[in-house]
Each structure stands twice: as structure tokens, then as C-alpha cells.
């Protein structure tokens, strides 16, 4: 019945992949658990439903980085594939190293009730890139919302309001760096905050060093973040990290007409320039 598990079984039986990364039933009612299936006996665990919020592209980087020649199969929604595109673009993986089990998606939910904010305005209910596609059900129309509406709303606030807002939010940060750890594009082996010579970002928590970290995070993801929202989901203090990420995406889109995760051949906007880039702010 469950075609993902059948596909996984087949891939593993035929020895085509070293593992299948996917979702299984979680231990809590509104959560799914991510699993790395390595044998076909375990493949039946794999499921897909509207609680599969996680972006499994993370399992292609960091400690999961592939050392074997054999590819790994990953269950991916259309939005997750953008991260893979980014990783290919940034030479972290090669297309052949990942077998994408694309799933058609009608939106996912973090709490079992409400649609995840990242799902509004989704244009990728069917993944753009995949090796096999599952999910026969028809695409339901997801309500369209201007993805930048909250950014635009926020920009209307005064300078002081914005500052106070962020100071209140960032004060909560305990620097666990979970936002970094779950981000598929934060794949550095040694993050700038872990570098001690010199230490650009102090490791303690205070408004200023938290600000410094969050500026760094947002800036390093500018033009790269695909908006999967994992950072915000992982933040147990509910810091609105997506707001920063979206702002960066908007700036990059407005100024350089670039959207992350769509073209694996494109140059990243901050490693690039155009002669006619705007300079009205320069004296």
C-alpha cells in the first residue's frame, strides 16, 4: 500500500542506495520521527503524511556527509528539494549521490491543526527534481498568501519599534545553536562561532552577542536560505528566525532578482556582482 516503503524496500534490496532517509510514526501524536533505514526489513516504517514537516536535506550534510560512493535515498517534498539544489550548487553533494523520492504534498502541519507557514504560497507541491515521484492524490489548492507580507508589515514599524522587538526576541536566545544544527545549508564543519582566533561572536548570551550571532546567521544565509523554516521550528524559544531569513530573501530578490534553491548552476548572489548593482546609498 505504502509506496514509499515499497520503493525503499526495492532500492535497498537492489543495493542501489546505502540508506533511505524518511519519516515514520512519531512518539507524540503531532510529530513524525525521522528515520534512517538501512535494511529493507525496516522499510515498512516509512510513511508520509501531513505531519512530515522536517526538511530531510539535513541528512545529506554535516555528520551525515556521504563517504560512500553509493547514493542515499531521501524522501523529499517539493520545498525540501530546493535545499538539495542549494547543496549541489554549493558543491556539497553531487546530484548522483542522492536519490530523491519526491512526494506530492498538499501542505504540512507542525501541530496537526494549522498549515505550516512555509506552505502558503507554495509553488512546488510537486517537486521540481526527483528520481521517483510518489503520491497519486491530486494537488489541492493551497491558499496563496504573499510570502513577504509579514516582512512588509514589520518594515512599517519605526526604527525603535523594530529594535525593541528584536531585543526582546533575541534576549531569549540561549545560544544552543539548534537553529544552525538543523539548517541544511549551515553545513560548515567549523562554524564561525566556534572559531576562537579571533572570536568574532562571543559565546556567552547577552543581547549584543546574541544579536551578533543572529546577524551572522541571517547574513550567511542571505541568498541561500530556501525558507524551509527548520531553524524557527527547532528554536524552542520561538525566536522568529524566519522573519529575518525572509527579509534576506526579499532583499536578494528585489535587488538581484535571485531566488535560492531553483538553479543548481547559478552563482550565489553574494559571490557575484553586476556592474549595474544599485549604489544610491554610496557617496
Amino acid at each position: 500500500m505504502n509506496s514509499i516503503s515499497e520503493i525503499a524496500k526495492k532500492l535497498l534490496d537492489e543495493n542501489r542506495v546505502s540508506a533511505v532517509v524518511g519519516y515514520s510514526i512519531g512518539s507524540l501524536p503531532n510529530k513524525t520521527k525521522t528515520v534512517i533505514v538501512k535494511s529493507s526489513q525496516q522499510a515498512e516504517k516509512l510513511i508520509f503524511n501531513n505531519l512530515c514537516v522536517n526538511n530531510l536535506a539535513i541528512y545529506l550534510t554535516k555528520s551525515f556527509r556521504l563517504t560512500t560512493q553509493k547514493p542515499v535515498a531521501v524522501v523529499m517534498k517539493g520545498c525540501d528539494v530546493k535545499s538539495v539544489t542549494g547543496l549541489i550548487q554549493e558543491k556539497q553533494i553531487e546530484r548522483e549521490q542522492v536519490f530523491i523520492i519526491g512526494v506530492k504534498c498538499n501542505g504540512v502541519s507542525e501541530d496537526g491543526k494549522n498549515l505550516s507557514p512555509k506552505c502558503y504560497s507554495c509553488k512546488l507541491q510537486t517537486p521540481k527534481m526527483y528520481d521517483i515521484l510518489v503520491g497519486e492524490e491530486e494537488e489541492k489548492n493551497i491558499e496563496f498568501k504573499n510570502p513577504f507580507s509579514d516582512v512588509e508589515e514589520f518594515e512599517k514599524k519605526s526604527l525603535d519599534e523594530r529594535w525593541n522587538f528584536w531585543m526582546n526576541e533575541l534576549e531569549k536566545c540561549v545560544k544552543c545553536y539548534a537553529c544552525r544544527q538543523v539548517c541544511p545549508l549551515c553545513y560548515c564543519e567549523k562554524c564561525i562561532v566556534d572559531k576562537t582566533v579571533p572570536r568574532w561572536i562571543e559565546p556567552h548570551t547577552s543581547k549584543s552577542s546574541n544579536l551578533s550571532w543572529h546577524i551572522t546567521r541571517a547574513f550567511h544565509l542571505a541568498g541561500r536560505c530556501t525558507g524551509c523554516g527548520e531553524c524557527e521550528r527547532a528554536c524552542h524559544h520561538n525566536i522568529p528566525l524566519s522573519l529575518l531569513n525572509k527579509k534576506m530573501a526579499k532583499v536578494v530578490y528585489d535587488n538581484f532578482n535571485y531566488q535560492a534553491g531553483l538553479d543548481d548552476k547559478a552563482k550565489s548572489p553574494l559571490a557575484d556582482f553586476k556592474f549595474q548593482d544599485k549604489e544610491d546609498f554610496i557617496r
Partner: protein
Amino acid sequence: MSRIGVFVCYCGENIGRTVNCSEVTQRAAKLRDVVYSVDYKYMCSDPGQQIIKDAIKKYNLNGIVVASCSPLMHEKTFRHAVVEAGLNPFLCELANIREHCSWVHDDKRNATDKALDLIRMMVEKVKKNLPLDTIKIPVTRRALVIGGGVAGIQAALDIADGGKEVVMVEKSPSIGGHMAQLSETFPTLDCSQCILTPKMVDVNSHKNIKLYTYSEIENVKGYIGNFEITIRKKTRYVDDSICNGCGICIEKCPQKKINSEFNTNLGTRKAIYVPFPQAVPNIPVIDKENCTYFKNGKCKVCEKFCDRNAIKFEQTDEFIKENVGAIVVATGFDLYSIEKERSDNYQGYGEYGYGKDPDIINSLQFERLLSASGPTLGEVTRPSDGKIPETVVFIQCVGSRDKSKGIEFCSKICCMYTAKHTMLYKHKVHNGKAFVFYMDIRAAGKNYDEFVRRAIEEDEAIYLRGRVSRIYREKDKLIVKGADTLIGKQVEIAADLVVLATAMLPQKDTVPFAQKLGIGYDKYHFLSEAHPKLKPIETNTAGIFLAGACQAPKDIPEAVAQASAAASKVLGLCSNDQLEREPYVAYVNESSCIGCEFCLQSCTYSAIENKSIVNSKGELVKKVAYVNKGVCQGCGTCVSICRSKSIDLAGYTDEQIYSEINSMFV
């Protein structure tokens, strides 16, 4: 901890007038890790330098801060002094308390405080300075010249005469370039081939020049002093080591009616041909597209008649590797093609009818009509019916200086050659009338304006200031409609022939070529010099120089002058076994580099490459960035782009800058 010495200079009164140097010296002595601090009237003087040298020894200093003038002024002086005392020169920094402090401030209190701040910042920086060694790069003392036009020829000859070997690569079957196509040259009207041919022969016979014609650059690897070039020698189907250029094959070839590129399609050639009689090398090429054998599988007449068996139908492209230390790029120009339909960014000149009417030609075609070796043997006739044209209209700035067509620059040479054309035409067709539509006459150059005046005054060329709006045929005549803006009237001329002075553009495919070399180009694809004023010959890739019209429109003397300049640069480079460079280059922390290649993408100089890290079993662990020290110029763009700060710039490391910032406001 570090043992820093601070040396405060009064610079006579220059610093001392506004900065209280003795106070600065005393306060500097109390800074962390400063073990010695002293002031002196002129630190750059011999006794001043001696103070530094003595202090280094006496106090065992391992960092020096000289508070004096701009480092651009005396950094070298003090670093040299420091070396004499046995310290690494890069452990000496200058705090600029003159140009940036005493000279620009009036208030003594403020200036003194600021001077101390500047010193403190430098003390903190120098503590993090690392001893550096100048970078030495071995030099292969040979050069590559790309392009066999007059610029390439001149550069090659100058380098070869200077005693260094030259490899010359020309993509067409013969060297000579556009100059070989010209009839006479301005402003002296001497015969182009007469002055060029001897140089071409020289190139061929010079013991230091290795000539590859009908060849192209396949690949360029390496960096200044150490380029490895792969040359694609295209298939001639004629063995150039056997052929003696007797020409019997050409005589016997049955395929006759092929447009001659050299004659700008105004004449014909065979399927086996040399482009022009004086070609160097005088070795024919088979034009595969038009050869009967290649088309039908039968013929081989040339092979039958060649008594040296030089025809080789089975020949294939050959790849040759050459190592050189420097490269001169002299790929020249191409004329802006004026057909209406275009694939590039420019607009065509459909309204002028070029390509539709055979009597509307471009200036290079007119050169061939004028040339004694041209298709008409020097007789000026109309391509349509061979009639001698009695009225010729020359239109200048076709393409050039025309924003609407996408080209804003002035092609520079058109004013001069159009004047020349009117003269040469008049000399050949005495009753002919030459009209010139022009925008401005730009004739700056030795004897140039005199030349134009001569065309107008002696050879009666009629200059009309204005643009032509339309050209159309009425029976035998071409009606040229235009404006004479000086009298403010529309004019209409019934012409027999129209010559368009079209814009100059770089050779087609310059972009992939420039990318192969890793050099810059502008929006018209002209190759970019490293600095428009101070480095007009260099490119931003060290060891690659520019000559001739590949950089911008140029006339012959300019191209030749630049070629000689490039040659002198090459000779300068090749006069040493080794190159020395300041060690301000980027370096990679391989343990934290993750190989995202952002640095590689953003490096202007292509100095960053991929490097594979393998484990003891030989398995690939990861790919990291690798900086080629010979190529890196030390701008540090990569450092900013690296998110994990896995790349740093020697001399301006993150730690040094961090220390400066940290001590800036205390």
C-alpha cells in the same frame, strides 16, 4: 608577551607642531606590551633608523610601530631598517600620524589623543603580525603571443630580438591580420603590405620564434612565470613539414568559386588555398567544407599533383603543449557586422541596406577594392556590375557612437581611413565625387588633421555634417538621404557606391577566450587592462599583457607602440629567474574549509582552485579551496565571502583587524 617598541617621529615640525610627540611617547610607553618608546626629530633619517635598530637589539623587540608619515611613504624604509636589525620586515607597522593626523587637525589636544589611538591600534595589530617571507616564483623565460596581426608580430619580434623565445599562435592560415588586407595606410599613404611583409617574413625566419598558424589556444593553466598552454593545431590536410609552397595543388583544384575571406567576399579562391600571395607561412589549407573529396568522396586532384606527397586527407587536429612565463594577447578586432538580423546585443543597420544591395559595402571591402593585390587589382569598380563609380558616399560612425545600436564608443580610426579612402578614390577615379557624412572629425594625432584637410582641400572630398537616414535604390543609383546639419537642410545624393565606416568590435568568441585566460573584458568584450591609467598594458592576471585592438580601437602606430610596450614588460619579467612578490596572499585553513567554492567563484584572478583531501587509504575525504600563491594578488575578497572564515589574508588577517577594532576606542 610581545615586546613592542614604539618610535615616534616629529617629522621636524610636521608632526610636532600639532601632536605633542613627547606626551604621545610617554603614554605609548604605558600601553600593554610596549617595552620601549622613544621620540626623535626625523625617524626616517639615518640616525633615526639607527635608534630603531639599536632598540631592537637592546630590548629584544619583536614588534615595531613607527608613528610617522603614511606607510605608503616610508613603510619600505623602516621595514628595511628592521631587517638590518635581524627582524622580519613584516613585524614593523607604521602609525600614520602625519597625513592622517597632524596635517589635518588644528587642535593639539585632539590630534595628540588621536595619534595615541592610532599608535595603540598599530601596537595591537603588530602583536598579531606574523613573520612573512616574500614569495618567490620561478619564471619560464619564454613568451606566448596570441594573434599574428601587426601587434602580435611587433611584440613577438621585440621579445625574440631581446633574446627570449616566443611562441606565436595565429588562428588563420597566415599571419598578417587586418593590416595585410589594407591598401595604403594613413597619414603617409605608404603601402601596407610593403611595410608589413618584411616583418612577417622575419617572424617566420626568426630563430627565437616558433610559429603556429591555423592554430588556436585550447587551454591555459598556471600563473605568472609558469603558464602551460595547450595549442590546438587545426587540420590543414597539408603536411607543413613537407610542403614547399609550390602552389600546383591550388592551380589544379577544380573548386574555384569559393568566396575569399581575405578579399572580404569580393573575390574567390579555391578549395585548397593560401589566403593571399604573400601569406606566411606559404602553405595551403584545404577548406573541408568546400573540398570535392570531402563532399563527394572523390577527387584528390591535389594529392595526385603534389610531387612531395604533402597532402594528407587523414590528418586530424593536433594538440601541442608549450610552457611559457608570459602571455601577450593581440587578438585584434573584427568589424561590426551591419546586417539587420543579429544574435548579439547590438542593433543592425537595416536602414542602410547592407547585405541586400551589393553596392553598399563596408570600409574593409573598399580597402580590398583599392588594393593593388585585391580582387579588382586596384581598380575601383562597383561589385554589382563592375562599373567605375562616379559618386561615392562614405558614411561614418556606422555603429560607433550610436547608443541606439548598443555601441557608445568611438571607433577612433574611421575618420582617418575615410579621409584616406576619399583620397585614394580620387587618385584612381579623377572625375569621381566623394561625399562623406560625418558626426565630428576626430583627427588627433601626428599629421592627422593635416591629412584630413588635404582630403578636403586638395582631393575635394565633400564633407557633410549629419546622419544618413535612408539609402534605397533607384534604377542604377543608390539614393542616399541625409541631413546636412550645418546648413540645416535635407540632402539627397544619387550615388554609385556607398561605403560604410562600421564600428570596430573585438574578435568573436572573445568571452570564452578571456575566460580561458582568466582575464577581464568590458561590456563590448574588449579585453580589460588592469588599470586604465597606470597599468594600460597589464591585465588583472599577472603575466598576461595586452597589445593592439583587442583592448580598444587603435590605429597601427598605437597598436605597434603597445605591442612594444608589452614586449618590454615580457622582457622585464623574463630577465629574472625568479619573481619576488609581497607575501600578502590568501591562505586556506583546510581543516575547516568545506569546499563551497564561493571564494573560487569570486576570485577575480582565478587564484583559487579545488584541492582534494584524501585519507590514508586514498579515499576522497573532502574538497577544499587551494590558493595559488603565484596568482593571488591579495585583495581579500575571498576572506569576506568565506562564511566559516577558513580563508585568511596574510598581512591583513582577521586577527590583526580584530585587534585593531578592539583597541580603537578605549
